[in-house]
Structures are given as C-alpha cells and as structure tokens.
C-alpha cells in the first residue's frame, strides 16, 4: 500500500515539470506551512520591520513553494517552547529573523530556520547588504536560500536585478535598475529619451540602451559600476537591442539603415553587422533560440503582426503561431514561446492584450492572463517564470507569472509608464 502511495506521489511530482503549456497546479496542502517571526530589537523602526516582513512573506508566497502564514508575528531571537512550535498554527517551518543596523548603512539579518514539528533550530545564517535602501534584495536572498534548502525548484530569478525604462513625459524617459517587486529602484540614466535597456550579460554588470537624444538613434553600452558609457553604433529611423546571445558576444538589433526596419546580428568583438531578415514591412523584436542559431521575431508579413522564426544564415521563414490576429511581442526559451496577442479587432472591446504560451513540440496553447493590457513578456532563465508589463486601471506595473503554480502577480509603478523591461 505504501509503495502504491509513494508511486502516486512521485508520478505527481514528475508531472509538474512535464509541459508548461498544460495547467497543472500544485495543491497547497502539499506545501510546507511556514510562519515568519520578527525577532528584531524594539530599537529598530517598526515601519521598517513591517516593510521587511511584507517583502519576505511576499517572496515566499510568490515562490509558490510554501504555504505561508500572512500574520506578522514577533518573538525573541532565542525563542522558547511556545515560540519554537506555534502549535495553534500547525506549522512545518518557522523562519525567525533579527534585523540589525551597522555603521555606514549596512543592514544585517540574522536568520534561523526552525523545524516547528521538533522545535529544533535546523540552520542559522547571517545575511548582510551594504546599503539601507537595498533591504528588499536582502529579503529576496533569504527567500532564495530557504527555497533551495527545502529542495524546491530554483527561484534564483528573485536575486536578479530588473532593468526598465519608463516614460515620464513626451520624449522623456528614465532607465531604472530595480528588484522584481520595484521596492528598490535606482535611476541609472536620465535626461531626454533613453529606452530599450537590455542587460549585456548574465552577471548584470553592464547594459545596452538606445539614446534618442542625438541626430540618430544610438546604441550605448554602460558599465553599471563606473557609469561609463561606450557608443556601439547608430542607425537612422530606429534602433533597438532586442536580445543578447548567451555568451554576450552577439546582439540582435532591429535597425533601419535604409529607413526599413529589419533584424540584424551584431558581433561585438568583430564589429560585424549581418542582416537576418529582409522584408518590406515590419520585422522586429528578435530573440535568439536553439543555442543562438535561430531567431524568433515579430513580423507583419501576413498583413498583421505575428510570430515567425528564421535560421541565421538562411532565408526561409517559418510561422510559429497560428492563433490570434495581432501578436506583437514575443519571448522564447528552450521549446517555449510566450507572446502577447490582441484579443479583438476593435480597440474598444473589454478584452485587450493577453499573454499566451505555446510549445514548439506540441499543439497546446495556454492563456496566461485575463485582465488588463499584458505586453512585453520576458522569460526568466528557468522557463517557469515570465515577467511582463501590465497596464491596468490606468496604472503601469511589472507583472510576474509562475507557470507551474498557475499564479500571477503585479507590482505597480507609482510614477510614469513602463516602456520596456529586461531581467
């Protein structure tokens, strides 16, 4: 009997990673139940402590790997019989933390993970971050490590910085580096129209962006630490760095040296430009796929925007999506393609733009969003998480979809309108 049950559990677990286009939702009762205890000294500002709690509890919820108790609880750091069990909550785990401030704005979090079934401290660890305003990243770091500790699928993307451009007026924008919740934000480029930021590498120590402040749109590369920028190239008409190859050596650009927007590959080291698409209409939003040998992109070559793919070095184009009549943005990873599709031909209908997921190996289509305008999807490295721009009730937000848990979240931007994102 036990063998049969074990087989059922194992088969269920393996199904979760089978095909992301098929909705399989993990049931909450299978997740470890966890409560957070704030054991900071009373000298630490209470509003700060509550903000920290809110981010950490949000991280665990967004991970979709915990059954999280939302209640803000306080305890001593040492703990006692009652605090180490919290019997009335019937917990599996307790995450107890104590925040300390050091000189020069350093924030420290001492963290204990307690097995609430035994009341024993399972592990203890200290986290620190050098600047006070970056405390959200400290919380994300704690969540990422706790998630790894229970052996759940990685949520390392929480540690990644997001870079985005936001419009703040006509022909005016700013480029900002933030965490995924927008709780931490730092403006890195301001003044004029600077758009389409794109991380230059996985280390996130440099980024590309297009400046519209000169005679021609110009692509720059900026070193994050020094702030030094280097001109890469210019193009009349428009210029967007849509994707960077895995090794960081090649860029997919949409540019228009002859007034005609096409997709090009630019080799950073050789300074060589290769034209990939050649069509008299619109080709845009190129993404590397198949080990950077192929490009998926948006084109209006059928009379409306849709998703196509082309081998680099070949002229034959393959239609990738057979659904929708206005699919104007795409992101791809492994065998999966996520795209934004306009629902109706009328611009005044109740439905606007929704995200859809397809697999290149199956015929399934999965609708990922249902309300608001959902645009500019971007996969995380793990293909289980998608970030996108959401416009809802006249507000612009970063949206986040956890595919395996079938959950989505959005984090509103207080001022401005998000233009583009990368992470």
């Amino acid at each position: 009997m036990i063998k049969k049950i074990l087989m059922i559990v194992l088969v269920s677990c393996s199904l979760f990673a089978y095909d992301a286009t098929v909705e399989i939702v993990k049931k909450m009762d299978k997740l470890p139940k966890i409560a957070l205890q704030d054991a900071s000294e009373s000298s630490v500002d209470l509003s700060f402590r509550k903000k920290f709690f809110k981010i950490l509890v949000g991280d665990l919820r967004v991970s979709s790997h915990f059954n999280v108790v939302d209640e803000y609880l306080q305890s001593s750091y040492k703990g006692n019989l009652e605090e180490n069990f919290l019997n009335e909550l019937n917990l599996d785990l307790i995450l107890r933390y104590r925040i300390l401030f050091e000189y020069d704005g350093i924030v420290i979090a001492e963290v204990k993970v307690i097995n609430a079934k035994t009341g024993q401290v399972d592990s203890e660890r200290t986290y620190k971050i050098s600047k006070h305003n970056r405390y959200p990243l400290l919380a994300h770091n704690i969540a990422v490590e706790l998630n790894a500790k229970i052996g759940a699928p990685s949520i390392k993307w929480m540690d990644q910085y997001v870079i985005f451009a936001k419009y703040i007026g006509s022909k005016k924008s700013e480029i900002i580096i933030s965490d995924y919740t927008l709780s931490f934000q730092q403006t890195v480029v301001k003044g004029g129209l600077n758009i389409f930021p794109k991380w230059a590498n996985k280390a996130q120590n440099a980024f590309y962006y297009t400046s519209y402040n000169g005679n021609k749109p110009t692509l720059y590369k900026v070193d994050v630490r020094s702030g030094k920028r280097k001109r890469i190239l210019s193009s009349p008409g428009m210029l967007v760095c849509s994707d960077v190859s895995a090794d960081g050596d090649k860029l997919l650009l949409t540019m228009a040296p002859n007034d005609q927007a096409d997709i090009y590959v630019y080799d950073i080291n050789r300074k060589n430009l290769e034209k990939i698409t050649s069509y008299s209409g619109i080709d845009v939003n190129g993404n590397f796929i198949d080990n950077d040998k192929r490009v998926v992109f948006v084109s209006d070559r059928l009379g409306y925007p849709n998703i196509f793919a082309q081998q680099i070095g070949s002229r034959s184009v393959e239609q990738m999506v057979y659904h929708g009549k206005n699919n104007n943005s795409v992101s791809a990873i492994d065998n999966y393609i996520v795209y934004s599709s306009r629902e109706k031909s009328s611009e005044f209908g109740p439905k606007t733009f929704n995200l859809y997921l397809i697999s290149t190996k199956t015929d399934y289509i999965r609708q990922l969003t249902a309300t608001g305008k959902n645009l500019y999807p971007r996969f995380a490295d793990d293909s289980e998480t998608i970030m996108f721009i959401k416009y809802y009730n006249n507000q612009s937000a970063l949206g986040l979809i956890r595919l395996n848990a079938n959950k989505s979240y959005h984090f509103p931007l207080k001022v401005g309108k998000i233009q583009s994102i990368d992470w």
Partner: protein
Amino acid sequence: MKKILLISLTIAMFIFSGCSQKNPEVDATSNSSGVSTADKKADDISGMDTDKMASNGMSKNATAVEKAIAKLESNVNKIYFDFDKYDIRPDMKSKIEANAVLLTTMDAKNFSIKVEGNCDEWGTDEYNYALGLKRAKSVKESLAAYGVDKERIMVVSFGESNPTCKESNKACWNQNRRAEFKLLP
C-alpha cells in the same frame, strides 16, 4: 481513509525534509564565509544625466533661422493614420501634396526635413517604433512622389513616446497616430 491520508502526509514531509538535508547551511557561529552578501553584484550602481552630457550646439545667430523654421513648421500639416496601419489614407493625400508645395518653396528648400512617425498607446512599444518608422517612410515616399528631393528627407520613429494627447479615448488615439515634420538647418 484517515490512515492513508496520514501516510501520504508523512511521505510528503519525508520528501521535503529529505531534500532540505542534502544542502546543509553554514552555521552562523562559524567564520565569515557563512555570511551571505546579497549585493555582490552591482554594489555600486552609477547614474548619468544625458541632458548634462549633451552639448549645446546652438550658434549665436540661430534665432533668425529658428524663427524661419518655426514659421514653416506651423504651416505644415500633420498626417494621420488608421489604427495599426502605415499606408497613406485617401483624405491625407491632399495634405501631403500641400506640404510638398510648402517644403519646396524658396523659404524652405534649404532646410532638411525630418519626418517623425508616432503611434498611439496600443501595443508593445518595440513594435510601435517599427510601425512609427513605416508611417514616416510612407510619408517620405509620398512627399518624394510630389517632387520633394528624397535626399532632403530623413525619417525617425518615436513610437508611443510623443503623444500630443494624453487621455485614453478614441479621439486622443486618432491624434497620436501621426507623422510630424521638423526642419533642420
């Protein structure tokens, strides 16, 4: 039934607790390697203000030229487009023809012409920049057909970054789907 449920939960707990023990964490009482530094990447993010970096190229006697340009620009017709389209509407052809006449006058013919393509707020901005460019290119080709030297005309797209109307309604979106003209010395 209760027994089966209990056994299932026990197995689930075994899986979670079993996994968690594979990667034991460093005890905080150990040395500093147990401290996780959350900001090892980009711990010094620098900013720049491109307005301050831009050079001011305006010459001392630019005012007269600027006035001439402003006068001409105020008389050039904006060209409007249908939703998600970049072909010239029939009702816009006469406007382009009038622009071509103005832009080939003695007062204007020494200036270069920049056609700026713009979009409404619908759609992804990357696509909108390409759409705006196609609109500007359509206008450039139409102006050339009416006798304006192509070499004088450059095109640029501003996607949805440059709305003239910021409300969210049909009338506004109609105004924002347009091509505008700038004259350059």
